[in-house]
Protein backbone atom coordinates (compact mmCIF):
# COMPACT_ATOMS: atom_id res chain seq x y z
CA UNK A 1 0.00 0.00 0.00
CA UNK A 2 2.73 2.37 1.05
CA UNK A 3 4.67 1.59 -2.10
CA UNK A 4 1.72 2.58 -4.21
CA UNK A 5 1.23 5.93 -2.52
CA UNK A 6 3.71 7.46 -4.87
CA UNK A 7 3.07 9.64 -7.88
CA UNK A 8 0.88 7.00 -9.54
CA UNK A 9 -1.79 7.16 -6.93
CA UNK A 10 -1.64 10.94 -6.73
CA UNK A 11 -3.31 11.33 -10.14
CA UNK A 12 -6.10 9.03 -9.08
CA UNK A 13 -6.53 10.96 -5.86
CA UNK A 14 -6.89 14.13 -7.92
CA UNK A 15 -9.56 12.41 -9.98
CA UNK A 16 -11.34 11.57 -6.74
CA UNK A 17 -11.41 15.30 -6.01
CA UNK A 18 -8.63 15.54 -3.45
CA UNK A 19 -5.90 18.11 -3.81
CA UNK A 20 -2.32 17.42 -2.83
CA UNK A 21 -2.60 19.33 0.42
CA UNK A 22 -5.22 17.20 2.08
CA UNK A 23 -3.43 14.03 3.10
CA UNK A 24 -6.31 12.70 5.12
CA UNK A 25 -7.40 9.92 2.78
CA UNK A 26 -9.70 7.25 4.08
CA UNK A 27 -8.47 3.71 3.64
CA UNK A 28 -11.53 2.65 1.63
CA UNK A 29 -10.98 5.46 -0.90
CA UNK A 30 -7.33 4.45 -1.23
CA UNK A 31 -8.24 0.81 -1.81
CA UNK A 32 -10.79 1.81 -4.46
CA UNK A 33 -8.17 3.97 -6.14
CA UNK A 34 -5.67 1.13 -6.23
CA UNK A 35 -8.29 -1.24 -7.63
CA UNK A 36 -9.04 1.22 -10.49
CA UNK A 37 -5.35 1.48 -11.22
CA UNK A 38 -4.94 -2.28 -11.37
CA UNK A 39 -8.02 -2.72 -13.54
CA UNK A 40 -6.91 -0.03 -15.95
CA UNK A 41 -3.40 -1.40 -16.25
CA UNK A 42 -4.79 -4.88 -16.85
CA UNK A 43 -6.92 -3.46 -19.65
CA UNK A 44 -3.84 -1.65 -21.00
CA UNK A 45 -5.57 1.72 -20.71
CA UNK A 46 -3.08 3.30 -18.34
CA UNK A 47 -0.29 4.99 -20.28
CA UNK A 48 1.96 5.01 -17.24
CA UNK A 49 2.35 1.25 -17.34
CA UNK A 50 5.71 0.50 -18.88
CA UNK A 51 5.47 -3.15 -19.91
CA UNK A 52 5.94 -3.80 -23.61
CA UNK A 53 3.16 -5.57 -25.47
CA UNK A 54 3.59 -9.23 -26.45
CA UNK A 55 5.36 -9.80 -29.77
CA UNK A 56 3.94 -12.22 -32.32
CA UNK A 57 5.63 -14.18 -35.08
CA UNK A 58 5.33 -13.41 -38.78
CA UNK A 59 2.73 -15.50 -40.63
CA UNK A 60 1.76 -15.66 -44.29
CA UNK A 61 -0.38 -12.64 -45.16
CA UNK A 62 0.54 -10.45 -42.19
CA UNK A 63 1.25 -6.79 -42.84
CA UNK A 64 3.52 -4.67 -40.71
CA UNK A 65 3.77 -0.95 -40.00
CA UNK A 66 5.46 1.63 -42.17
CA UNK A 67 7.42 4.73 -41.29
CA UNK A 68 7.17 8.48 -41.71
CA UNK A 69 10.32 9.94 -43.30
CA UNK A 70 11.69 13.21 -44.66
CA UNK A 71 12.99 13.55 -48.23
CA UNK A 72 16.57 14.83 -48.02
CA UNK A 73 17.66 14.80 -51.66
CA UNK A 74 19.09 12.61 -54.38
CA UNK A 75 22.54 11.12 -54.95
CA UNK A 76 24.20 8.70 -57.39
CA UNK A 77 25.12 5.11 -56.51
CA UNK A 78 27.00 2.46 -58.46
CA UNK A 79 26.58 -1.31 -58.60
CA UNK A 80 29.44 -3.81 -58.48
CA UNK A 81 29.31 -4.05 -62.29
CA UNK A 82 29.82 -0.30 -62.64
CA UNK A 83 26.24 0.73 -63.55
CA UNK A 84 25.09 4.02 -62.19
CA UNK A 85 21.67 4.55 -60.57
CA UNK A 86 20.08 7.52 -58.82
CA UNK A 87 18.72 7.15 -55.30
CA UNK A 88 16.69 9.37 -53.02
CA UNK A 89 17.82 9.73 -49.41
CA UNK A 90 15.00 9.59 -46.84
CA UNK A 91 15.65 10.30 -43.18
CA UNK A 92 13.42 8.81 -40.47
CA UNK A 93 13.29 11.61 -37.89
CA UNK A 94 11.51 10.96 -34.54
CA UNK A 95 9.01 8.39 -35.77
CA UNK A 96 6.67 7.14 -33.00
CA UNK A 97 3.54 5.01 -32.91
CA UNK A 98 0.73 7.26 -31.62
CA UNK A 99 -2.42 5.21 -31.39
CA UNK A 100 -3.57 1.67 -31.94
CA UNK A 101 -7.13 1.01 -33.10
CA UNK A 102 -8.27 -2.61 -33.05
CA UNK A 103 -10.00 -4.33 -35.96
CA UNK A 104 -13.50 -3.85 -34.53
CA UNK A 105 -13.08 -0.13 -33.87
CA UNK A 106 -11.46 0.69 -37.18
CA UNK A 107 -13.38 -0.89 -40.03
CA UNK A 108 -13.96 -4.53 -39.17
CA UNK A 109 -11.28 -5.84 -41.52
CA UNK A 110 -7.87 -4.88 -40.15
CA UNK A 111 -6.35 -3.05 -37.25
CA UNK A 112 -4.84 0.39 -37.75
CA UNK A 113 -1.82 2.06 -36.23
CA UNK A 114 -1.46 5.84 -36.29
CA UNK A 115 2.20 6.78 -36.72
CA UNK A 116 3.67 10.27 -36.41
CA UNK A 117 6.94 11.68 -37.70
CA UNK A 118 9.09 14.81 -37.41
CA UNK A 119 8.74 16.77 -34.16
CA UNK A 120 7.29 20.29 -34.39
CA UNK A 121 6.40 23.08 -32.03
CA UNK A 122 3.11 22.57 -30.10
CA UNK A 123 2.02 26.06 -31.15
CA UNK A 124 1.36 24.78 -34.65
CA UNK A 125 -0.84 21.85 -33.72
CA UNK A 126 -4.50 21.95 -32.75
CA UNK A 127 -5.79 21.04 -29.29
CA UNK A 128 -7.28 17.80 -30.59
CA UNK A 129 -3.96 16.75 -32.06
CA UNK A 130 -2.12 17.71 -28.86
CA UNK A 131 -4.46 15.43 -26.93
CA UNK A 132 -3.44 12.50 -29.12
CA UNK A 133 0.24 13.19 -28.50
CA UNK A 134 -0.31 13.64 -24.80
CA UNK A 135 -2.06 10.27 -24.53
CA UNK A 136 0.80 8.59 -26.35
CA UNK A 137 3.45 10.39 -24.30
CA UNK A 138 5.20 11.61 -27.38
CA UNK A 139 6.32 15.08 -28.58
CA UNK A 140 3.99 16.81 -31.09
CA UNK A 141 4.49 15.57 -34.65
CA UNK A 142 4.07 17.29 -37.98
CA UNK A 143 2.41 14.39 -39.79
CA UNK A 144 0.21 11.59 -38.42
CA UNK A 145 -0.66 8.78 -40.88
CA UNK A 146 -2.59 5.59 -40.51
CA UNK A 147 -1.17 2.21 -41.51
CA UNK A 148 -3.53 -0.72 -41.93
CA UNK A 149 -1.88 -3.60 -40.16
CA UNK A 150 -2.65 -7.24 -39.38
CA UNK A 151 -3.57 -8.16 -35.79
CA UNK A 152 -0.25 -9.83 -35.02
CA UNK A 153 1.68 -6.68 -35.95
CA UNK A 154 0.16 -4.15 -33.54
CA UNK A 155 2.67 -2.11 -31.58
CA UNK A 156 2.28 -0.27 -28.30
CA UNK A 157 1.71 3.47 -28.68
CA UNK A 158 4.84 5.40 -27.81
CA UNK A 159 7.34 2.95 -29.35
CA UNK A 160 9.90 4.67 -31.55
CA UNK A 161 10.37 3.35 -35.08
CA UNK A 162 13.78 3.38 -36.79
CA UNK A 163 15.12 3.10 -40.31
CA UNK A 164 16.41 -0.43 -39.57
CA UNK A 165 12.74 -1.50 -39.81
CA UNK A 166 13.50 -1.78 -43.54
CA UNK A 167 16.42 -3.81 -44.85
CA UNK A 168 18.41 -3.41 -48.07
CA UNK A 169 17.06 -5.45 -50.96
CA UNK A 170 13.47 -4.86 -49.86
CA UNK A 171 10.91 -2.96 -51.93
CA UNK A 172 8.79 -0.09 -50.61
CA UNK A 173 6.00 2.24 -51.67
CA UNK A 174 6.44 5.91 -50.92
CA UNK A 175 3.46 8.28 -50.68
CA UNK A 176 3.76 12.05 -50.48
CA UNK A 177 2.03 15.21 -51.61
CA UNK A 178 3.37 16.14 -55.05
CA UNK A 179 4.78 19.61 -55.70
CA UNK A 180 1.94 22.08 -56.25
CA UNK A 181 2.00 23.71 -59.69
CA UNK A 182 -1.02 25.95 -59.18
CA UNK A 183 -3.66 26.56 -61.84
CA UNK A 184 -2.30 25.00 -65.02
CA UNK A 185 -3.49 24.71 -68.58
CA UNK A 186 -4.54 21.56 -70.32
CA UNK A 187 -1.19 20.98 -72.09
CA UNK A 188 0.85 20.83 -68.89
CA UNK A 189 -1.83 19.23 -66.72
CA UNK A 190 -3.05 16.49 -69.07
CA UNK A 191 -0.45 16.43 -71.83
CA UNK A 192 -2.73 17.61 -74.64
CA UNK A 193 -1.00 18.43 -77.92
CA UNK A 194 -2.38 21.94 -78.37
CA UNK A 195 -2.42 23.58 -81.81
CA UNK A 196 0.33 24.63 -84.28
CA UNK A 197 2.25 27.83 -83.60
CA UNK A 198 1.69 29.30 -87.06
CA UNK A 199 -0.08 28.61 -90.37
CA UNK A 200 -3.06 30.81 -89.69
CA UNK A 201 -3.97 29.82 -86.12
CA UNK A 202 -5.98 32.68 -84.63
CA UNK A 203 -5.37 33.04 -80.91
CA UNK A 204 -5.36 29.23 -80.42
CA UNK A 205 -2.07 27.59 -79.49
CA UNK A 206 -2.55 25.87 -76.08
CA UNK A 207 -6.32 25.48 -75.91
CA UNK A 208 -8.10 22.15 -75.29
CA UNK A 209 -9.96 22.18 -78.62
CA UNK A 210 -13.13 20.08 -78.68
CA UNK A 211 -14.81 19.11 -75.39
CA UNK A 212 -16.90 16.08 -76.41
CA UNK A 213 -18.91 14.20 -79.07
CA UNK A 214 -21.63 16.66 -80.09
CA UNK A 215 -25.40 16.75 -80.45
CA UNK A 216 -26.13 13.18 -79.30
CA UNK A 217 -25.11 13.44 -75.65
CA UNK A 218 -25.39 17.26 -76.01
CA UNK A 219 -23.39 17.60 -72.82
CA UNK A 220 -19.85 17.47 -71.51
CA UNK A 221 -19.17 14.28 -69.53
CA UNK A 222 -18.20 14.46 -65.88
CA UNK A 223 -14.49 14.17 -65.36
CA UNK A 224 -13.61 15.85 -68.66
CA UNK A 225 -9.94 16.81 -68.63
CA UNK A 226 -9.84 20.59 -68.34
CA UNK A 227 -7.49 23.20 -66.92
CA UNK A 228 -7.35 23.44 -63.12
CA UNK A 229 -5.17 23.18 -60.01
CA UNK A 230 -2.34 20.74 -60.60
CA UNK A 231 -0.15 19.04 -58.01
CA UNK A 232 -0.40 19.16 -54.22
CA UNK A 233 -2.18 15.79 -54.19
CA UNK A 234 -1.06 12.51 -52.65
CA UNK A 235 0.90 10.43 -55.14
CA UNK A 236 2.42 6.98 -54.50
CA UNK A 237 5.54 5.60 -56.13
CA UNK A 238 5.38 1.78 -56.05
CA UNK A 239 8.08 -0.87 -55.95
CA UNK A 240 11.14 1.19 -55.01
CA UNK A 241 14.17 -0.86 -54.02
CA UNK A 242 16.07 -0.03 -50.85
CA UNK A 243 19.77 0.01 -51.68
CA UNK A 244 21.23 1.01 -48.35
CA UNK A 245 20.19 1.70 -44.75
CA UNK A 246 22.22 3.83 -42.34
CA UNK A 247 21.22 2.73 -38.84
CA UNK A 248 23.17 5.44 -36.99
CA UNK A 249 21.54 8.43 -38.68
CA UNK A 250 18.34 6.57 -39.74
CA UNK A 251 18.69 7.22 -43.48
CA UNK A 252 17.14 5.06 -46.22
CA UNK A 253 18.56 5.08 -49.76
CA UNK A 254 15.60 4.37 -52.02
CA UNK A 255 15.80 3.76 -55.79
CA UNK A 256 14.77 6.44 -58.26
CA UNK A 257 12.72 9.51 -57.53
CA UNK A 258 9.97 10.07 -55.03
CA UNK A 259 7.04 12.55 -55.15
CA UNK A 260 7.31 15.76 -53.12
CA UNK A 261 9.77 18.60 -52.69
CA UNK A 262 13.01 18.40 -50.64
CA UNK A 263 12.40 18.24 -46.88
CA UNK A 264 8.81 17.10 -47.37
CA UNK A 265 7.24 14.44 -45.11
CA UNK A 266 6.55 11.06 -46.71
CA UNK A 267 4.86 7.81 -45.80
CA UNK A 268 6.96 4.70 -46.46
CA UNK A 269 5.54 1.16 -46.30
CA UNK A 270 6.22 -2.34 -47.62
CA UNK A 271 5.15 -2.86 -51.26
CA UNK A 272 1.75 -4.10 -52.21
CA UNK A 273 3.12 -5.35 -55.55
CA UNK A 274 2.89 -9.18 -55.54
CA UNK A 275 6.06 -9.75 -57.59
CA UNK A 276 8.25 -7.69 -55.26
CA UNK A 277 7.05 -9.08 -51.97
CA UNK A 278 10.03 -11.22 -50.97
CA UNK A 279 9.89 -13.10 -47.69
CA UNK A 280 13.50 -14.27 -48.00
CA UNK A 281 14.88 -11.17 -46.35
CA UNK A 282 13.13 -11.67 -42.99
CA UNK A 283 12.67 -8.04 -42.10
CA UNK A 284 12.06 -7.40 -38.37
CA UNK A 285 8.47 -8.19 -37.42
CA UNK A 286 6.52 -6.22 -36.08
CA UNK A 287 9.33 -3.66 -36.06
CA UNK A 288 13.03 -3.19 -35.22
CA UNK A 289 13.69 -2.97 -31.48
CA UNK A 290 17.16 -1.76 -30.48
CA UNK A 291 17.08 -3.62 -27.15
CA UNK A 292 16.10 -6.97 -28.58
CA UNK A 293 17.96 -7.08 -31.85
CA UNK A 294 21.25 -5.75 -30.63
CA UNK A 295 23.80 -3.77 -32.60
CA UNK A 296 23.66 -3.70 -36.36
CA UNK A 297 26.47 -2.27 -38.50
CA UNK A 298 26.25 1.45 -39.08
CA UNK A 299 25.68 0.95 -42.83
CA UNK A 300 23.72 -1.96 -44.27
CA UNK A 301 24.28 -2.41 -48.00
CA UNK A 302 22.40 -4.33 -50.68
CA UNK A 303 24.36 -7.27 -52.18
CA UNK A 304 25.01 -5.73 -55.58
CA UNK A 305 25.83 -2.24 -54.33
CA UNK A 306 29.39 -0.92 -54.68
CA UNK A 307 30.69 0.26 -51.30
CA UNK A 308 33.08 3.22 -51.57
CA UNK A 309 35.72 1.67 -49.33
CA UNK A 310 36.31 -1.18 -51.82
CA UNK A 311 38.97 -0.83 -54.54
CA UNK A 312 37.92 0.15 -58.06
CA UNK A 313 35.83 -2.20 -60.15
CA UNK A 314 37.65 -4.33 -62.76
CA UNK A 315 35.32 -5.55 -65.49
CA UNK A 316 36.04 -8.91 -67.06
Amino acid sequence: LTALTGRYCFTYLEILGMNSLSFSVSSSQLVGCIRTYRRQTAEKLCPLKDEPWPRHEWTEGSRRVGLVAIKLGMAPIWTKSGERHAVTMLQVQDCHVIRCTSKEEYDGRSAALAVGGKNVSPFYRSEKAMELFRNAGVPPKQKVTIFKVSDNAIIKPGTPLYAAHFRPGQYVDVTAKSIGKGFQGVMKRWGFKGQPASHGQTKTHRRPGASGPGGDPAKVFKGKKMPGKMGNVFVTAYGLKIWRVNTKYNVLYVHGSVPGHTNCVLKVRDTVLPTRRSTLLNPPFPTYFTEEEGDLDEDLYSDDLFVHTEPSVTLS
Partner: protein
Amino acid sequence: MAACTRGLKNLLTSIKFCRTLQFQDERFLCTSALRFANNEPPKFVPPSKPVIINKTQTTASTRRFLSPEFIPPRGRTDPFKYFMERRDMVRRRKALNIPEFYVGSILAVTMADANASGKTNRFVGICIQRGGRGLGATFVLRNILNGQGVEICYELYSPRIQTIEVLKLEKRLDSNLMYLRDALPEYSTVDPEMKPVPFSPTGEVPVNKLKVKMCPKPWSKHWERPQFAIQGIRFDLCMTPKQMEFVQKKYAKPWEEYDMLKEYDTSKLEEQIFAEVQQEMNK
Protein backbone atom coordinates in the same frame (compact mmCIF):
# COMPACT_ATOMS: atom_id res chain seq x y z
CA MET B 1 99.82 -19.23 -55.88
CA ALA B 2 101.97 -16.27 -56.65
CA ALA B 3 98.91 -14.36 -57.73
CA CYS B 4 97.26 -15.20 -54.44
CA THR B 5 100.18 -13.99 -52.37
CA ARG B 6 100.51 -10.95 -54.56
CA GLY B 7 96.78 -10.32 -54.13
CA LEU B 8 97.05 -10.77 -50.38
CA LYS B 9 100.01 -8.42 -50.10
CA ASN B 10 98.24 -5.81 -52.17
CA LEU B 11 95.12 -6.32 -50.10
CA LEU B 12 97.06 -5.70 -46.91
CA THR B 13 98.58 -2.54 -48.33
CA SER B 14 95.25 -1.34 -49.52
CA ILE B 15 93.71 -2.06 -46.13
CA LYS B 16 96.44 0.01 -44.44
CA PHE B 17 95.90 2.74 -47.02
CA CYS B 18 92.22 2.75 -46.34
CA ARG B 19 92.69 2.71 -42.60
CA THR B 20 94.76 5.83 -42.86
CA LEU B 21 92.12 7.40 -45.08
CA GLN B 22 89.49 6.48 -42.47
CA PHE B 23 87.16 4.57 -44.81
CA GLN B 24 85.20 7.19 -46.58
CA ASP B 25 83.44 4.73 -48.82
CA GLU B 26 83.07 1.02 -48.04
CA ARG B 27 82.44 0.39 -51.70
CA PHE B 28 85.99 1.52 -52.53
CA LEU B 29 87.37 -1.19 -50.26
CA CYS B 30 85.27 -4.06 -51.45
CA THR B 31 85.58 -3.32 -55.20
CA SER B 32 89.30 -2.87 -55.00
CA ALA B 33 89.65 -6.07 -52.97
CA LEU B 34 87.59 -8.01 -55.47
CA ARG B 35 89.51 -6.57 -58.41
CA PHE B 36 92.75 -7.75 -56.97
CA ALA B 37 91.24 -11.12 -56.00
CA ASN B 38 89.93 -12.21 -59.45
CA ASN B 39 90.45 -10.59 -62.87
CA GLU B 40 86.80 -9.89 -63.60
CA PRO B 41 84.92 -6.64 -63.64
CA PRO B 42 83.32 -6.16 -60.20
CA LYS B 43 79.60 -6.59 -59.85
CA PHE B 44 77.92 -3.25 -59.88
CA VAL B 45 76.62 -2.37 -56.45
CA PRO B 46 74.32 0.59 -56.74
CA PRO B 47 74.94 3.38 -54.23
CA SER B 48 72.48 3.72 -51.36
CA LYS B 49 69.99 6.43 -52.13
CA PRO B 50 70.38 9.41 -49.84
CA VAL B 51 67.14 10.28 -48.01
CA ILE B 52 66.65 14.03 -48.05
CA ILE B 53 64.43 15.30 -45.24
CA ASN B 54 63.44 18.83 -46.09
CA LYS B 55 62.95 20.39 -42.69
CA THR B 56 61.97 23.75 -44.18
CA GLN B 57 58.81 22.30 -45.77
CA THR B 58 56.18 21.87 -43.04
CA THR B 59 52.60 20.66 -43.45
CA ALA B 60 51.44 24.23 -43.02
CA SER B 61 53.22 25.39 -46.15
CA THR B 62 51.76 22.67 -48.45
CA ARG B 63 49.04 24.08 -50.62
CA ARG B 64 45.56 24.27 -49.07
CA PHE B 65 43.30 22.83 -51.70
CA LEU B 66 39.64 21.94 -51.30
CA SER B 67 38.18 20.23 -54.36
CA PRO B 68 35.27 22.33 -55.68
CA GLU B 69 32.77 19.45 -55.47
CA PHE B 70 32.89 19.59 -51.66
CA ILE B 71 31.36 23.06 -51.58
CA PRO B 72 27.57 22.67 -51.49
CA PRO B 73 25.46 24.76 -53.88
CA ARG B 74 23.10 27.39 -52.54
CA GLY B 75 19.65 25.96 -51.98
CA ARG B 76 17.16 24.78 -49.42
CA THR B 77 18.60 21.30 -48.93
CA ASP B 78 19.42 20.15 -45.44
CA PRO B 79 23.21 20.44 -44.80
CA PHE B 80 22.94 16.98 -43.26
CA LYS B 81 22.46 15.52 -46.76
CA TYR B 82 25.79 17.08 -47.87
CA PHE B 83 27.40 15.73 -44.71
CA MET B 84 26.33 12.17 -45.61
CA GLU B 85 27.61 12.63 -49.17
CA ARG B 86 30.92 14.01 -47.93
CA ARG B 87 31.48 10.91 -45.80
CA ASP B 88 31.08 8.73 -48.87
CA MET B 89 33.36 10.99 -50.90
CA VAL B 90 36.09 10.77 -48.24
CA ARG B 91 35.75 6.97 -48.15
CA ARG B 92 36.24 6.82 -51.91
CA ARG B 93 39.21 9.19 -51.73
CA LYS B 94 40.89 6.89 -49.22
CA ALA B 95 40.50 3.98 -51.65
CA LEU B 96 41.51 5.92 -54.80
CA ASN B 97 43.94 8.83 -54.86
CA ILE B 98 42.17 11.76 -56.53
CA PRO B 99 44.90 14.38 -57.00
CA GLU B 100 44.58 18.12 -56.95
CA PHE B 101 43.94 19.52 -60.41
CA TYR B 102 42.41 22.57 -62.04
CA VAL B 103 40.77 23.43 -65.33
CA GLY B 104 43.65 23.68 -67.78
CA SER B 105 45.72 20.84 -66.29
CA ILE B 106 46.61 17.81 -68.36
CA LEU B 107 45.38 14.53 -66.89
CA ALA B 108 45.60 10.84 -67.76
CA VAL B 109 42.68 8.66 -66.65
CA THR B 110 42.53 4.82 -66.81
CA MET B 111 39.02 3.44 -66.65
CA ALA B 112 37.62 -0.11 -66.62
CA ASP B 113 35.97 -0.81 -69.98
CA ALA B 114 34.39 -4.15 -70.85
CA ASN B 115 34.81 -3.62 -74.60
CA ALA B 116 38.47 -2.56 -74.59
CA SER B 117 41.41 -4.96 -74.92
CA GLY B 118 42.94 -5.52 -71.49
CA LYS B 119 39.62 -4.32 -70.07
CA THR B 120 41.00 -0.84 -69.32
CA ASN B 121 41.42 2.22 -71.46
CA ARG B 122 43.68 5.21 -70.86
CA PHE B 123 42.80 8.68 -72.04
CA VAL B 124 45.02 11.75 -71.85
CA GLY B 125 43.57 15.21 -72.24
CA ILE B 126 43.30 18.75 -71.03
CA CYS B 127 40.63 19.39 -68.41
CA ILE B 128 38.18 21.91 -69.81
CA GLN B 129 35.42 21.85 -67.21
CA ARG B 130 34.74 20.66 -63.64
CA GLY B 131 31.05 20.34 -62.93
CA GLY B 132 28.64 18.85 -60.44
CA ARG B 133 28.68 18.82 -56.65
CA GLY B 134 28.89 15.94 -54.23
CA LEU B 135 29.25 12.35 -55.42
CA GLY B 136 28.13 13.20 -58.96
CA ALA B 137 31.07 15.55 -59.61
CA THR B 138 32.44 15.32 -63.17
CA PHE B 139 35.34 16.63 -65.21
CA VAL B 140 35.66 16.81 -69.00
CA LEU B 141 38.95 15.94 -70.74
CA ARG B 142 39.57 17.08 -74.28
CA ASN B 143 42.12 15.85 -76.82
CA ILE B 144 42.47 15.63 -80.59
CA LEU B 145 43.23 12.09 -81.82
CA ASN B 146 43.95 11.53 -85.54
CA GLY B 147 42.47 14.92 -86.36
CA GLN B 148 39.23 14.18 -84.49
CA GLY B 149 38.40 16.18 -81.39
CA VAL B 150 37.32 13.93 -78.51
CA GLU B 151 35.84 15.01 -75.20
CA ILE B 152 35.14 12.52 -72.41
CA CYS B 153 33.19 13.41 -69.28
CA TYR B 154 34.36 11.33 -66.29
CA GLU B 155 32.69 11.06 -62.89
CA LEU B 156 35.28 11.58 -60.15
CA TYR B 157 33.73 9.06 -57.76
CA SER B 158 32.75 6.37 -60.25
CA PRO B 159 34.13 2.92 -59.28
CA ARG B 160 35.16 2.28 -62.90
CA ILE B 161 37.95 4.84 -62.68
CA GLN B 162 41.17 3.08 -61.72
CA THR B 163 43.80 5.85 -61.75
CA ILE B 164 43.86 9.59 -62.26
CA GLU B 165 47.32 11.11 -62.82
CA VAL B 166 48.14 14.73 -63.29
CA LEU B 167 50.72 15.02 -66.07
CA LYS B 168 50.92 18.80 -65.92
CA LEU B 169 49.44 20.89 -63.14
CA GLU B 170 48.56 24.40 -64.18
CA LYS B 171 45.72 26.87 -64.19
CA ARG B 172 44.45 29.02 -67.02
CA LEU B 173 42.90 32.45 -67.19
CA ASP B 174 39.35 31.02 -67.18
CA SER B 175 37.57 28.36 -65.11
CA ASN B 176 35.82 26.94 -68.17
CA LEU B 177 37.70 26.18 -71.38
CA MET B 178 34.74 25.18 -73.57
CA TYR B 179 35.90 27.73 -76.14
CA LEU B 180 38.71 25.35 -77.12
CA ARG B 181 36.09 23.70 -79.34
CA ASP B 182 36.16 26.80 -81.54
CA ALA B 183 39.87 27.43 -81.19
CA LEU B 184 42.59 26.19 -83.54
CA PRO B 185 43.27 22.46 -83.03
CA GLU B 186 46.83 22.97 -81.85
CA TYR B 187 45.56 24.34 -78.53
CA SER B 188 43.60 21.17 -77.71
CA THR B 189 46.16 18.60 -78.84
CA VAL B 190 47.90 16.76 -76.05
CA ASP B 191 50.51 14.05 -76.70
CA PRO B 192 49.10 10.74 -75.34
CA GLU B 193 52.62 9.53 -74.47
CA MET B 194 53.45 12.70 -72.61
CA LYS B 195 55.80 12.39 -69.64
CA PRO B 196 54.59 13.84 -66.35
CA VAL B 197 55.97 17.31 -65.67
CA PRO B 198 57.22 17.49 -62.06
CA PHE B 199 55.50 20.02 -59.82
CA SER B 200 56.02 21.01 -56.22
CA PRO B 201 53.33 20.43 -53.59
CA THR B 202 53.96 23.88 -52.11
CA GLY B 203 53.65 27.37 -53.45
CA GLU B 204 51.35 28.84 -56.05
CA VAL B 205 49.99 26.85 -58.95
CA PRO B 206 51.48 28.24 -62.21
CA VAL B 207 48.92 30.20 -64.26
CA ASN B 208 49.33 29.80 -68.01
CA LYS B 209 48.43 33.21 -69.41
CA LEU B 210 48.01 31.79 -72.89
CA LYS B 211 45.57 33.61 -75.18
CA VAL B 212 44.15 31.27 -77.74
CA LYS B 213 43.62 31.97 -81.47
CA MET B 214 40.16 31.11 -82.69
CA CYS B 215 38.78 29.57 -85.88
CA PRO B 216 36.73 31.92 -88.06
CA LYS B 217 33.24 32.70 -86.85
CA PRO B 218 30.48 31.36 -86.40
CA TRP B 219 31.40 29.78 -83.08
CA SER B 220 29.31 27.32 -81.06
CA LYS B 221 28.65 30.04 -78.48
CA HIS B 222 29.06 33.81 -78.57
CA TRP B 223 32.28 33.73 -76.56
CA GLU B 224 32.79 37.49 -76.91
CA ARG B 225 29.69 38.29 -74.83
CA PRO B 226 30.19 39.51 -71.24
CA GLN B 227 28.16 36.64 -69.72
CA PHE B 228 31.07 34.25 -70.34
CA ALA B 229 33.71 36.75 -69.18
CA ILE B 230 36.49 34.97 -71.09
CA GLN B 231 40.03 36.27 -70.67
CA GLY B 232 41.88 33.61 -72.63
CA ILE B 233 40.93 34.40 -76.27
CA ARG B 234 42.78 36.69 -78.73
CA PHE B 235 39.73 38.77 -79.59
CA ASP B 236 41.90 41.37 -81.33
CA LEU B 237 42.55 38.84 -84.13
CA CYS B 238 38.86 37.88 -84.64
CA MET B 239 36.96 41.16 -84.34
CA THR B 240 37.54 44.89 -84.46
CA PRO B 241 37.60 46.89 -81.20
CA LYS B 242 34.40 48.62 -82.32
CA GLN B 243 32.55 45.30 -82.73
CA MET B 244 33.87 44.15 -79.35
CA GLU B 245 32.75 47.32 -77.63
CA PHE B 246 29.30 47.06 -79.24
CA VAL B 247 28.80 43.47 -78.08
CA GLN B 248 30.05 44.20 -74.57
CA LYS B 249 27.70 47.16 -74.28
CA LYS B 250 24.63 45.49 -75.77
CA TYR B 251 24.72 42.28 -73.72
CA ALA B 252 26.00 43.79 -70.50
CA LYS B 253 23.94 43.31 -67.31
CA PRO B 254 25.25 46.05 -65.02
CA TRP B 255 22.53 45.38 -62.42
CA GLU B 256 23.88 41.87 -61.69
CA GLU B 257 26.67 43.18 -59.52
CA TYR B 258 24.08 44.74 -57.19
CA ASP B 259 21.82 41.66 -57.08
CA MET B 260 21.89 40.52 -53.46
CA LEU B 261 20.17 37.22 -54.14
CA LYS B 262 23.08 36.20 -56.39
CA GLU B 263 25.59 36.72 -53.57
CA TYR B 264 26.95 33.45 -52.21
CA ASP B 265 29.88 33.81 -49.87
CA THR B 266 31.37 30.36 -49.28
CA SER B 267 34.51 31.34 -47.34
CA LYS B 268 33.31 30.22 -43.89
CA LEU B 269 31.69 27.08 -45.27
CA GLU B 270 34.90 26.26 -47.14
CA GLU B 271 37.01 26.53 -44.01
CA GLN B 272 34.68 24.31 -42.01
CA ILE B 273 34.47 21.72 -44.76
CA PHE B 274 38.24 21.81 -45.34
CA ALA B 275 38.91 21.18 -41.63
CA GLU B 276 36.36 18.35 -41.58
CA VAL B 277 37.72 16.69 -44.70
CA GLN B 278 41.35 16.93 -43.53
CA GLN B 279 40.41 15.34 -40.23
CA GLU B 280 38.58 12.49 -41.93
CA MET B 281 41.37 11.86 -44.45
CA ASN B 282 44.04 11.70 -41.75
CA LYS B 283 42.13 9.19 -39.61
